[in-house]
């Protein structure tokens, strides 16, 4: 059985990795929103 400390670190790492991916996806989404908005106002 894993020690609680190991499990804590595993979950923190998992959450950090997921957040990094989500932040990356958000930046890409903002880029496309900006491009679409500029296109609409042309």
């Amino acid at each position: 059985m894993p020690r609680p400390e190991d499990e804590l670190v595993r979950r923190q790492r998992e959450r950090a990795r997921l957040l990094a991916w989500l932040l990356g996806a958000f930046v890409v989404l903002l880029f496309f929103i900006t491009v679409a908005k500029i296109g609409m106002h042309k």
Partner: protein
Amino acid sequence: MTPSIAQTSLPADWRDLLALTKPRVMSLVVFTGLCGLLAAPVTLPPALGFTAILCIALAAGAAGALNQWYEADLDAKMRRTANRPLPARRMDRQSALHFGVGLGAFSVVLMDLATNHLAAILLLASILFYVLIYTVWLKRRTAQNIVIGGAAGAFPPLIGWVAATGRIDLLPALLFAIIFLWTPPHFWALSLFVRSDYAAANVPMMPVVAGIRNTRLQILIYSLILAVAAMAPWALGLTGTIYAVASAVLNVVFVVLAAAVFANRADQPSGMKPERRLFAFSILYLFILFAAVVADRWIAL
């Protein structure tokens, strides 16, 4: 097994955060929102359309998380919900609250940024309606909880339409009305065969408060009103032949199944096959009906 304190104080697992958003409910919300968006006479650039649907999904997830945060005690008393992250103590309540508020705020701000103010306001209203009006105020107080609370689930097609057009028209208002009227027979059919769960948790659902017979009558009445509302978009000239045919067939089946529920005399879940059939069909009904609205807009007969 009761989890140890160490287990509950661990950061929440992402699977539990996902479960907090009620993904199965979200699929219907996303679908009806997408139909509202695609049925609109204005076509959004794909990036903005995608963002609008993403915001609707995130807002639904936020509302689901806040609902579970508030109802953790109630969920623990019902078999159907006892294994959710909070009653099963896999997550602490504060994390659920922060997650729900954060996700909700993010969805509203992003919607405002990507589409328009009215869509963002409606999105915020849908979250607040579900959490404050339905969850906090109505659910534990009145058997009409589902009737009034149904409005929360009726927002997505309206929001999808408004995200594309920036205004509220008659067709999305009718789509709102259809989901609003669909909700009582859908949920009452379910609550009939899980009645003991609601009774154990002291939730005043219709079968618990008004009895099985009266609930079956209400299901039939609402099904008939729903059939009229669902034919209205065609009768008012807002949709075409595809919708007319689909709606007519779906409503006949819905009313027949509701009549079978009304005719059923069983009071034990094992004898409630008509209720299970109606519940399952009601989901299919909404999917096909809304798909027909979109088909009518995009396919010229």
